[in-house]
């Protein structure tokens, strides 16, 4: 069967248009929730003044309390600013796993107690892995914290949700830090990270814990 030249050209054009649409659709990936282990973690305590003291980093557990804090930063967060999606159903969260509350049958009252005293606050001064309780960086007096223990914004994320990681039989606190992301990484283009603080002593998993390190979750294209 023969078709006219005009008909064949029209068919070819329709095919090209369909192909082009298919290309456009394929370059727009759907947003996916990502869970990443926070890599920049530094424990600060008044007794540790050596910036290189190995008790302050690379540990599976840390003790957080009135004089012990955890500085945390996902080191490449700013570079992902544009791809991160924020929406009421897509919060940016920090997960802190609690080893001492591990309970197969659930021990939520203890976890709830931890949740009531722990906060995650935006750090307002740039720091590095040589930070200590007294200094954000050790190279000059410019590195001194205004307040020992770290300078932070009082607009903290409080009252985290207590959730259970059934796969690992662990309980974790889930802090919503979406506002911090909007105010600092996206709003100002700076990421000084977050500080985990507590009014009472609580043990948390550290960054070298294989399955329960502090994590940040966000949705990104």
């Amino acid at each position, binding site marked *: 069967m023969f078709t006219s030249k005009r008909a064949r050209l029209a068919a070819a054009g329709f095919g090209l248009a369909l192909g082009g649409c298919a290309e456009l659709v394929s370059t727009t990936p759907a947003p996916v929730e990502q869970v990443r282990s926070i890599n920049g973690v530094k424990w600060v305590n008044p007794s540790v003044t050596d*910036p290189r003291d190995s008790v302050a980093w690379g540990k599976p557990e840390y003790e957080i309390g009135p004089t012990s804090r955890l500085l945390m930063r996902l080191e490449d967060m700013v570079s992902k600013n544009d791809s991160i999606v924020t929406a009421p159903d897509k919060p940016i969260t920090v997960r802190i796993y609690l080893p001492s509350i591990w309970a197969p049958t659930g021990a939520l009252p203890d976890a709830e107690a931890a949740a009531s005293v722990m906060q995650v606050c935006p750090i307002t001064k740039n720091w*590095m*892995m040589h930070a200590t309780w007294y200094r954000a960086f050790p190279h000059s*007096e410019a590195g001194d914290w205004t307040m020992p223990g770290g300078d932070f914004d009082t607009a903290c994320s409080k009252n985290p949700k207590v959730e259970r990681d059934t796969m690992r039989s662990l309980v974790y606190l889930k802090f919503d830090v979406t506002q911090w992301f909007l105010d600092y990484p996206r709003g100002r283009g700076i990421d000084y990270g977050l500080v985990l603080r507590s009014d009472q002593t609580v043990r948390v998993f550290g960054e070298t814990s294989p399955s329960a390190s502090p994590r940040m979750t966000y949705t990104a294209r």
Partner: protein
Amino acid sequence: MLIWCPAAQAGPTWVGNADDGSDLEGAKRVESGVLIDSRKTALMLLKTLGTEGVPGLGTLSAEVESSHVYMAAKDVSPLDEDQGSFHSDLSGRVYARTHARPHAPTRFFPIAATLSEAQLISLHIHEALHRSLPEVVRENESKVASITLAITSPEATQDQVRSVIAVQAPEILDVIRSQQAATEPALVSAVPESSRVKRPSVLAYGYRNYRGVNAQSVMQVESLHSIQSFLYPFGGERTPLGIGLEATLLNKRPGTEMGPLGLSARLRLWSSRGYDVGAFAKASLNMLSKEELQNSAVARDVGTFGVSMRKDLSFFFVENELSASLPGKSQEMVGTIPINYEFGTIYTAKVRAGGQLLGLKLGGFVEVNLADYFRVKQSNFTYDPGRYRIISGGPEVTYDFKNFGVSVYGRYLMDSTKGADFDWLGNILGQGMGQGSLGAEMHVYF
């Protein structure tokens, strides 16, 4: 020409083309006229040729220009020394005479009035050559005549004049060479036995204790032991050339580790003005793996080159040293987070001075370090205070006895850009660590 006859006169003997001076009777000073005009033309010719730069003719122009000209009252017969064609005509009458010594006058005789201007120019130059050439040739009529012809010949050049002198009167060059050789020892000072140029090689042990190293320091090195071996097997007596090695051991908190290895090329030079000059290029190389010292801020390779100059007087010495260290980098890992350190070019100016007596030297130094930058970078963190300075100084006491020496010194941070200390320089083998150091060294010189 005039001869001062030693047999007829007492006193100093003049050797030259002079007679008894009887022809001066009635001679009058000439201030103008053809003789003076021709002298000016002769002077222009000499300046055109640049005879002042020709060996042996350095004072010829001055002799032509400044010699007083006299005209004798009558012509005279030639003496034995007047046989040259420049002095007398075929009938034996003499044109001119002069003493063969600097600044003597020139006497012309009436017969000279028959000469053309070109001949008078030649006569002025010829007589001046008798006065200005070295003594070994100034009375040799044949050689003086050859040089006169070379200067006054048409289209004469300086090269031609030089060539004639080299061929016809080589003794002029010999005289000049011997004069230069005689003056050289006075210009080049002798190398004293106490100079480092005489004993440049050194084997030394040193110990340094760093001050102000605390918990906040970038690198907590408390002290350093070093073994130095600088040998100078090459070069001359005044310019020894050698290679230096320096191995170090660091005391850290906690433990002891191998420090950087220093390699250097060194030149010492005794200058003609009596200065002990040194030039060096050295590399401080980290020897350890990343798990050891290399995983720190100061674990960088440092390349430095510089020059020093020292003057020793009877009871005093002063030494300047200028050097520059090349930019470098180092990296430290804290967990999985890399911290990168960048060191800019460091310019160093150091002055040492003091008194010395019987091998004991008491002195001190002041050193200025000017660095382009010191940067610390971690993914989201950058510390960059820009250009900075560190000024340090301290006392030095040294006692040398024959081939042995001991020294004690201190280095203190006197002033710096806010927050800067020796850690920022990242040069353990150079300025060291912390706020300063106290050190001692034992040397064997050879």
